[in-house]
């Protein structure tokens, strides 16, 4: 199963499902990463973490550990 963590820079993916629960999951969804949305992985921070993605037309950064909660197609 592929998660957003494994997606390399410059690729677009579709979100399939979000695992986990509680504040982190809610926050990720509040920021617009929900089922079926297109996410473009834009870059990785210079120290290797976090990552920057484009979602719903804006830039969002999240940690790789949290990106692992996002299953993608």
């Amino acid at each position, binding site marked *: 199963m592929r998660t957003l963590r494994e997606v390399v820079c410059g690729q677009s993916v579709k979100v399939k499902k*979000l695992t986990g*629960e*509680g*504040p*982190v*999951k*809610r*926050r*990720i*969804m*509040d*920021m*617009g990463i*929900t*089922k079926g*949305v297109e996410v473009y992985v834009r*870059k*990785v*921070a*210079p*120290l*290797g*973490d*976090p990552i*920057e993605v484009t979602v*719903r*037309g*804006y*830039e*969002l*950064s*999240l*940690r790789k550990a*949290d990106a692992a909660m996002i299953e993608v197609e």
Partner: protein
Amino acid sequence: MAIKIALAGNPNCGKTTLFNALTGSNQFVGNWPGVTVEKKEGKLKGNKEVVIMDLPGIYSLSPYTLEEVVARNYLINERPDAILNIVDGTNIERNLYLSTQLMELGIPMVMAVNMIDILEKTGDKIHIDKLCKKLGCEVVEISALKGTGIQKAADRVIELAKQKQSMKLVHAFAPEVEARIEQVIDLIGNDIPEEQKRFFAIKLIEKDDKIADQMKQVPDIQNIISLMEKEFDDDTESIITNERYDYISSIINECCTKNKEKKLTTSDKIDRIVTNRWFALPIFAAVMFLVYYVSVTTVGSWATDWANDGVFGEGWNLFGINSLHIKGVPEYIEAGLNAIGCADWLRSLIIDGIVAGVGAILGFVPQMLVLFIFLAFLEACGYMARVAFIMDRIFRKFGLSGKSFIPMLIGSGCGVPGIMASRTIENDRDRKMTIMTTTFIPCSAKMPIIALIAGALFGGAWWVAPSAYFVGVAAIICSGIILKKTKMFAGDPAPFVMELPAYHMPTVSNVLRSMWERGWSFIKKAGTIILLSTIILWFLMSFGWVDGSFGMLEAEQLDSSILASLGNVLAPIFKPLGWGEWKMAVAAVTGLIAKENVVGTFGILFGFGEVAEDGAEIWGMLAGSLTAVAAYSFLVFNLLCAPCFAAMGAIKREMNNKKWFWFAIGYQTILAYVVALCVYQIGTLLSVGTFGVGTVVALLLIIGFIYLLVRPYQESKTLKVNVASVK
């Protein structure tokens, strides 16, 4: 009757700009009771009857962040007459997500779509009429920056507030979800007004743990939740969030037409370079260097020297010309007091107590203002979010934010603006942790102490100063790891899911306003404690018993002062640290006025009067009364313990809470004591081989310290801060 209007919107959507444009200078800035979230209120320009409440910038009304809970409790409990929802037109999809939640509160709402000037440039279009129909609320186009449409937005929202008609919801979720919401609405009692029932029903379905505080009767809807979760194979919180975004996606194509030719915006071009894998760190270093160089090394230090040594010292020369000498404030006041034949003690109280205290407050302000201009600029232009993005990896391990880098960097110059710089950190926990640990970094006032100890006992060894920084950094790292596991901090969840806003040029007036607000809040909130403690210490130092009678002392008679007697009482406490002599204790206490005073106090106590900045005259005597290990323990204690009064004032202001203020000061002092004790006891064991009770205690403390460092912890899933009473 005044009309209350709440201004609500996402962070970075231009809310502050709009608020400033609407209210001008009629603003009151404070804090929401008991929490560090800023509360801004203002009267509408040209209509004093209208009060505008600037709610914290939020993405959602979830129960997980302080800002969101503060905002929604205000909306529920205070019921403003109308909401002005500001929406970033360049990022409308995510901005509408909050709007769908605000509308459910039943409060009349006007939506202001901001940044239409940018939309015109990019060629994207938002069809206001369609948006209006699909959302069921009035929509106006504005540009907060240019000032277009603002008057119309204000007029519309006032009119709506006067009509007092509650919001009619138009948007709807999937039929299956709607049916469940209806079921829950029917179960809600009559303590909740009809128009708010949908909001409460949805919160109940989301299993929101903070909503029960707002309700008299909480219906049991467990079976409905279970049914829904089975139906959708997801938790209810996520089902609702999905439904909101699905609704927005379904209307967005109709309401907006995107420009088909995709051009790289200026912001994208900037970001390509600024957070580039290879350039990001050098650019970051350059920006930080510039901030430090200007606000600490050059302009900032000129400003501080001018304020402290000039205006509140021996005077200064206008334009640096000798003949244009302007006397310092104390000189003027002294001359005035002499002219009216003021009593000695009163003159001393005014000059050495009050004026010195006011000087200690105002002396830091010019430098602070220089720094605040930078901070306001970095925040408003969007680079501050990138600082967090770049530095997160290093700092999050210690319970700090990537943005903690700036307070600590500035703290190496002066802890006072350093602590004030922590305001840029949004997350409550990260901010408190930063406030508590920033002063561990040796500031420039601690340099003379380091020079004194290095010169007197270590022959000026090169490693003393770097080791002081090492101790400071180690104290920050260990404190971060230990504190984030304590009850006080393990409290709140802090996911790092952060928007990186588009870069844009901030306006001069917004930058200056932010600079002034922060500077003023330091004067107002930190001033009292600084002034009071300076006066108390002045009293302890200037009065005492000489030849059997109590009276005021000359500066050289410090050894007869009340403080010296107190030093004798305190001395045994410091005995296990290796410097149990009253002179050391007194020096450590006078260091609270300003850390460099430690050296001057030694000068007086060893009978030298004025000494050089590094106290070269007393090196010999100090070496005679301390062992090298004890001297290092003294150094470590002074580096880590409670900072000077000005910095304590800053801590008090930024914590905005008595309990947290004392916790911070207490923690710093206890940590300083423990580390100094271990340094002395273990150092003596290694160098002389003495083994005693102290050594055992030190070893036990080290074991306890290691336990605190490595014990496991679990991040909390709910917000523990009690904000139910926030109104």
